[in-house]
C-alpha cells in the first residue's frame, strides 16, 4: 500500500514539476524584460535610453509573454488530462463537478503563485544581466540605474498566474464534465479527444498568422539600411510558430498520414504500435510539437537573419554597434530558444513518464524493452519530422522578407550548416528526452506499473 502511495505521489510530482518549471522559467524570462521597462521609467533616465529600454521591453518582452502564456497553458493542460483517471475516481466517490473545478483551480493557482514568486529573485538577476549587456554594447548609457519594479512584477506574476488559471478553468470544465465510466474504463482513451479543433484555437492561429504576415511585410518594406528590417523580421518567426502551434494536432495528423506507410513497412510491431498511438492520441503527442516548431523556427529564423544582415553589411562598415546588436540578438534569441528547448524536454519527460502503465501493459503482452523503445523512437521520429518541417516553414516569414529588404531578392543564400546544426540539436534533445525517460520508466517491473487500478 505504501509503495502504491509513493508511486502515485511520484507520478503526480512529475506532472507538477512540469507545470512548476514552465511557470518558473516563464516568469524569469518575462520579469527580465519587464525590469527593462521599470529601469527606463525611472526619473533621470534620458529620453533616448528610455526609448531603447521600453522598445526592447515591449517588443521582445511581448513575444516572451505570448510564448510563456503558451507554454504554461499547454503544460498545465497536459498535467490535468494526465490525471483524468484520478479525477474520475473522485467523481465516482461523490465529488461534484464544482468541487473538482475548485480542486484543479486551487492546485493550479497554488502552483503558479509559488512558481512565479520563487522566480522573482532570478528574474531580478536576469534583468540586471540584460541591462549590463545593453550597457556593455553601448545601447544604453552607463549611468542608468537598474530598477526592478511594478512592470516586471506585474507582467511576470500576472502572465504566468493568469495563463495557469485560464488553462485550469478551461481544462477543468472539460475534465469535470467527462463521464465517470469512460474515464475509469481506461484513462488514456477517456482523455478528451475533440473530433474537430476548437473555434478559439482556429481564431488564435489565424490572428498569429496575420500578425506574422504584417511583420513580414513591414520588414520587406523597411529597406536595406540599418536594423529596421531586422526589428520587424525578428519576431515574425515567433508569431508564425505560435500560429502553427495552434494547429499542432492537425499538423501531427498530416505528418502521421505521410509517414505511416514507411513506419509500418520498416519497423515491425514497434512501428505498428507507434502508428496506432499517433492516430489515436494525436493531441497528447502533439503537445510536444509546439516547442519543437518554436525551437527550430526561432533558431533557424534568427540565426539566418543575422547571417543575411552580416553578409550585406560592408566589412568596412562593421562598427562596434553592429557587433553589439549581433551579441544582443544572440543573447535574446538564446534565451527564447533555450526556453523552448527546456519546454520541449519538460513536455517529453512529463508525457513519457505518464505512459508507464501503457508500457507495462505492452510488456505484459510480450513486448520487449527494445520493442517499447522502438515504438517511442518511431513516434518521436514523426514528431521530429513535423517539427523540422513546420519549424523551417516558421522561419521563412523572418528570412524571406529580410533577404528581400537587404538584397532585393526573396531567396537568400542557402545556409545548410546553420539548418543542420539547429536540426541536430532538436533531434538529439527530442530523442534523448523521450528515450531516456522511457528507459527509466522501463526499470519498474511491468506487473507493478499496472497494479494501481486494482
Amino acid at each position, binding site marked *: 500500500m505504501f509503495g502504491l502511495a509513493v508511486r502515485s505521489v511520484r507520478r503526480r510530482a512529475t506532472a507538477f514539476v512540469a507545470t512548476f518549471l514552465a511557470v518558473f522559467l516563464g516568469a524569469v524570462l518575462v520579469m527580465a524584460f519587464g525590469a527593462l521597462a521599470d529601469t527606463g521609467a525611472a526619473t533621470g533616465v534620458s529620453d533616448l535610453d528610455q526609448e531603447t529600454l521600453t522598445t526592447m521591453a515591449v517588443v521582445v518582452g511581448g513575444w516572451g509573454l505570448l510564448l510563456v502564456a503558451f507554454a504554461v497553458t499547454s503544460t498545465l493542460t497536459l498535467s490535468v488530462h494526465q490525471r483524468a483517471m484520478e479525477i474520475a475516481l473522485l467523481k465516482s466517490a461523490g465529488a461534484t463537478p464544482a468541487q473538482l473545478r475548485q480542486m484543479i483551480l486551487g492546485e493550479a493557482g497554488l502552483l503558479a503563485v509559488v512558481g512565479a514568486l520563487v522566480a522573482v529573485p532570478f528574474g531580478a538577476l536576469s534583468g540586471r544581466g540584460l541591462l549590463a549587456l545593453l550597457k556593455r554594447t553601448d545601447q544604453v548609457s552607463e549611468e542608468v540605474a537598474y530598477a526592478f519594479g511594478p512592470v516586471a512584477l506585474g507582467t511576470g506574476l500576472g502572465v504566468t498566474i493568469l495563463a495557469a488559471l485560464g488553462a485550469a478553468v478551461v481544462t477543468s470544465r472539460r475534465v469535470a464534465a467527462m463521464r465517470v465510466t469512460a474515464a475509469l474504463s*481506461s484513462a*488514456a482513451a477517456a482523455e478528451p479527444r475533440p473530433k474537430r479543433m476548437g473555434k478559439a484555437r482556429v481564431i488564435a492561429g489565424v490572428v498569429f498568422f496575420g500578425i506574422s504576415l504584417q511583420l513580414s511585410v513591414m520588414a520587406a518594406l523597411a529597406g536595406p539600411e540599418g536594423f529596421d528590417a531586422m526589428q520587424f523580421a525578428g519576431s515574425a518567426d515567433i508569431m508564425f510558430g505560435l500560429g502553427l502551434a495552434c494547429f499542432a494536432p492537425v499538423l501531427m495528423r498530416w505528418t502521421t498520414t505521410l509517414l505511416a506507410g514507411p513506419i509500418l513497412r520498416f519497423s*515491425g510491431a514497434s512501428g505498428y504500435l507507434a502508428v496506432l498511438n499517433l492516430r*489515436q*492520441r494525436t493531441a497528447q503527442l502533439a503537445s510536444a510539437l509546439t516547442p519543437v516548431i518554436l525551437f527550430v523556427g526561432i533558431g533557424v529564423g534568427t540565426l539566418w537573419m543575422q547571417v543575411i544582415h552580416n553578409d550585406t553589411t560592408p566589412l568596412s562598415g562593421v562598427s562596434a554597434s553592429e557587433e553589439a546588436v549581433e551579441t544582443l540578438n544572440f543573447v535574446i534569441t538564446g534565451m527564447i530558444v533555450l526556453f523552448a528547448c527546456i519546454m520541449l524536454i519538460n513536455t517529453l519527460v512529463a508525457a513519457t513518464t505518464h505512459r508507464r502503465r501503457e508500457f507495462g501493459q505492452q510488456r505484459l503482452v*510480450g513486448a520487449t524493452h527494445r520493442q517499447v523503445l522502438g515504438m517511442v523512437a518511431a513516434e518521436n521520429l514523426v514528431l521530429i519530422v513535423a517539427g523540422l518541417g513546420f519549424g523551417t516553414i516558421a522561419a521563412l516569414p523572418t528570412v524571406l522578407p529580410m533577404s528581400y529588404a537587404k538584397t532585393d531578392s526573396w531567396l537568400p543564400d542557402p545556409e545548410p550548416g546553420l539548418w543542420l546544426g539547429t536540426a541536430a540539436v532538436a533531434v538529439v534533445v527530442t530523442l534523448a528526452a523521450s528515450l531516456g525517460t522511457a528507459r527509466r520508466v522501463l526499470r519498474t517491473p511491468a506487473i507493478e506499473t*499496472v497494479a494501481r487500478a486494482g
Partner: protein
Amino acid sequence: MTGSQTTRNAPEATEALRLVRVSKTYGGDGTRVTALDDVSLALPRGTFTAIMGPSGSGKSTLLHCAAGLDKPDSGTVFVDGQELRGRSETELTKFRRERIGFVFQQFNLLPTLTVLQNTTLPLKLAGRRVDLNRARAVLERVGLGQRLDHLPSQLSGGQQQRVAIARALVTAPSVLFADEPTGALDTHSARDVLTLLQESVRVFGQTVVMVTHDPVAASYADAVLFLADGRLVGRMSNPTAQAVAERLTYLGDEVARQRRQQRHQVGLDASVATAGRPRKEI
C-alpha cells in the same frame, strides 16, 4: 519436449508447472505482507486446475510468480520443464510469448487498440504470422464476433474480459493462467468461457490454471487448490460445486487450526504445503 533437468528438484517431462518452495513478501517494515509462504506444487500437462482462497490470500501473486511476471523472493519456478530463474527480462518475455498465456484480473487491454488488434497483438510482438481467421474465430467463440472494431472503452467489463481471454488463447500457449476470468461475466457467458477453457485442455492438451471465487467455475476444473494466508492448505480432485462451497466454508476454521498447529510444532511444512498429494476431504 524439453530435456529434463538434472537439478535436485528436476521436473518431470510431463509436468507443465512446478513451484518449489516459492515465497514472496511485499512492503517494508511495518507494512510487510507475506503474499506467498513456501508454496510448492506440481501440475501435470493437459490439466485444468482451479485456485481458490479468500481475498488477499495470494492467488494473483501465485499466478504472477508462476508466469514469470513477478520474481519470487525465494524458491524456483519451472514452466514446461524450464527454470525461470536467472533469465534476463528480455529472455523471460520471449519465453512467455512462446509458452504462456495470461488473463489478467484487470484485463490490461491496450486502450488505443481495437478488439481485433488487441487480440492479435501478442502474435505481432512475437513476430509470428497473424492468422486473422483464427483470431476472429476465437473472438466469435467468446461472443465478440460483432465487436471486432470496437475500442476497449466502448465495451462492458465482461466484454473486455472476454477480449482478454481471446488474446491469451490466440497464441495457443502451452500453459494458460487466468485470474478470475469469469469474475465480470453473467452465468451464461461464464459457462461459455469455462467450456472454452475446458476444451483447450481436452482437445488441444493445454494446461490451464485458473483463479476463481466461484465454486461452479471451479467445478469445471480437474482439481482445486486452496490457498490461505499465502499457503496451500488443501487440494480437491474432481470437484463438484457443492463440495467446493462446503470446503470454502470450512477453510477459515482450517486456517485458524493450522496457525495454532504451527505455533506448537515449528517444523511444519511439506505435509500440508505439498499440494501434489490428495487429501481426505472433510
